[in-house]
């Protein structure tokens, strides 16, 4: 195991920065385009009070990619997630997901936030099955299969995240880390092609977080959904993502787009290797630049 880790190739490849990024072919080694934002802008409010949250952002994500969005707080990372999930429409520009423009029609993506929001009156198992009550084709069969096939499906996922036997417990009987694992299961139960994660591990302690990185990596490697992960944690981004996009301060733009080519499965030990640290430092420099230029902007 250790030998493989050391032997894995560390390489970080730069893709074009945002200005020329538009219309570029999808990076090699990836499948068809799953998510495409072109010149998408979002402005909150109107007139004098208008606050630009996202400015002319273009981003292409291939099917099955794991993309992390990092950047200073309030830079529009979550706005991108809301655009992609169809919860919000761009003020201008186009967002295409799964070959269709995002409209009122929902995409049935799996989402998970920092707050696990398990319903306290249901067992973990039933909490995880909640999306099946809503999404077709599961919805029409829910009454018939909830005690058999669907329950087995939920328990199979629970086993995969190390929560075997916890299905019949109630949320208040589980720790924060366990609830967050259940949250991941709920986001994946309806076999979405896309998983949108908004700082899912932000509230956890360092060790639990690292444990969950491995679990999420494992889930991604088995189910292969397209993942868009918003995070503040650069190590987390480096550990999990196959591509990291750095965003500028508000209004957000994509400053840098790097491919992370460390071999998988990645381990926590790898995050202390020189190449990994170098990647971290590079990302850090970008974010610090973005922060300081934003502060100068507000000062002038």
């Amino acid at each position, binding site marked *: 195991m250790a030998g493989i880790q050391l032997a894995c190739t560390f390489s970080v490849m730069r893709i074009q920065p945002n200005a020329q990024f538009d219309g570029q072919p999808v990076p090699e080694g990836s499948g068809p385009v799953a998510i495409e934002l072109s010149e998408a802008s979002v402005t909150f409010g109107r007139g004098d009070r208008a606050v630009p949250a996202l400015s002319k952002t273009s981003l292409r994500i291939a099917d099955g990619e794991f993309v992390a969005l990092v950047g200073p707080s309030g830079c529009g990372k979550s706005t991108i997630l*809301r655009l992609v*999930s*169809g*919860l919000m429409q761009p003020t201008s520009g186009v967002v295409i997901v799964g070959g269709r423009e995002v409209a009122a*029609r*929902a*995409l*049935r*993506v*799996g*989402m*998970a*936030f*920092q*707050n696990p*929001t398990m*319903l*306290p*009156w249901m067992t973990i198992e039933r909490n995880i099955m*909640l*999306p099946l*009550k*809503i*999404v077709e084709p599961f919805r029409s069969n829910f009454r018939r299969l909830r005690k058999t096939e669907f329950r087995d499906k939920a328990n199979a996922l629970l086993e995969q995240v190390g929560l075997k036997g916890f299905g019949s417990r*109630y949320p*208040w009987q589980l720790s924060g880390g366990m609830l967050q694992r259940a949250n991941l299961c*709920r*986001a994946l139960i*309806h076999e979405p092609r896309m998983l*949108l994660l908004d700082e899912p591990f932000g509230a956890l302690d360092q060790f639990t977080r690292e444990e969950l990185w491995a679990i999420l990596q494992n889930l991604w490697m088995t189910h292969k959904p397209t993942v868009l992960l918003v995070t503040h944690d650069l190590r987390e981004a480096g550990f999990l993502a196959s591509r990291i996009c750095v965003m500028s301060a508000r209004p957000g733009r994509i400053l840098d787009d790097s491919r992370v080519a460390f071999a998988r499965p990645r381990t926590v030990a790898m995050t202390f290797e020189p190449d990994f640290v170098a990647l971290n430092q590079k990302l850090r420099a970008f974010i610090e630049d973005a922060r300081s230029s934003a502060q100068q902007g507000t000062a002038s």
Partner: protein
Amino acid sequence: MMFGIDIRQKAWSAGLIVLFFVAWELFCLMTGMSDLVLPRPSQVFVTLFQRFPVLWPHIVQTLATTMFGFVLGVALGVALGAIIGVSKTAYDTCYPLLIGFSSIPKVAVVPIFVLWFGSGTVPAVLTALSICFFPIVVNIATGLATTEPELEDVLKALGASKFDILWNVGLPRTMPFFFASLKVAISYAFVGAVLSETVASNRGIGNVMMTASSNFNVPLVFAGLFVLAGLGVALYVLFSLIEGRVTGWATRKNDVIAT
């Protein structure tokens, strides 16, 4: 362990009640207090027992008006609470008016009801209704309004309709608030009914107490008071039990708001 502590706690509570009556009895005996001022509890219980056949129809009357007003109050409260809770705008718009209504002392509206409907059962029911519906409105609205925005996003991203969210999340989340408010509302309805009977009725426990007091039948006044206390506690316990049965999940961890 927990069970043992629970039993001991209950024993202490029961002991305190007994002690209260014993102390009262002893106080009256030692000071030679006239039963025109403060009858001994033993006298009150004897009166209660002797006059029970006469009291019974009044008990039924009071309970009936309470329940009738309560049921109407719940129906109105749930409807109003649901409307207010689902929409933020409705919540903000209606709240000041509701606060205005709720802060009127309900004694003050009884004469108005009597003016409109004459004395008797109708004003008692209406007083019970008007006093008990407010906590239900507030609790239903709060329950609906406190659905986590993240969960709503998760479900909306799955294509859930407003109704899906209300049915699977909003309503179940409201249940503990609702049952907590029922417990409070039934006590309020009871207070409202007795209040109205005392002021303007010729039936009900409230009226019995008024009549007895003007005849200086003080033990009977106190007997009426005991009946009221007993009924009030019984109704509260009944709805607490229902609450525990239906929404036991909520009392484990989350604090339930009851106004």
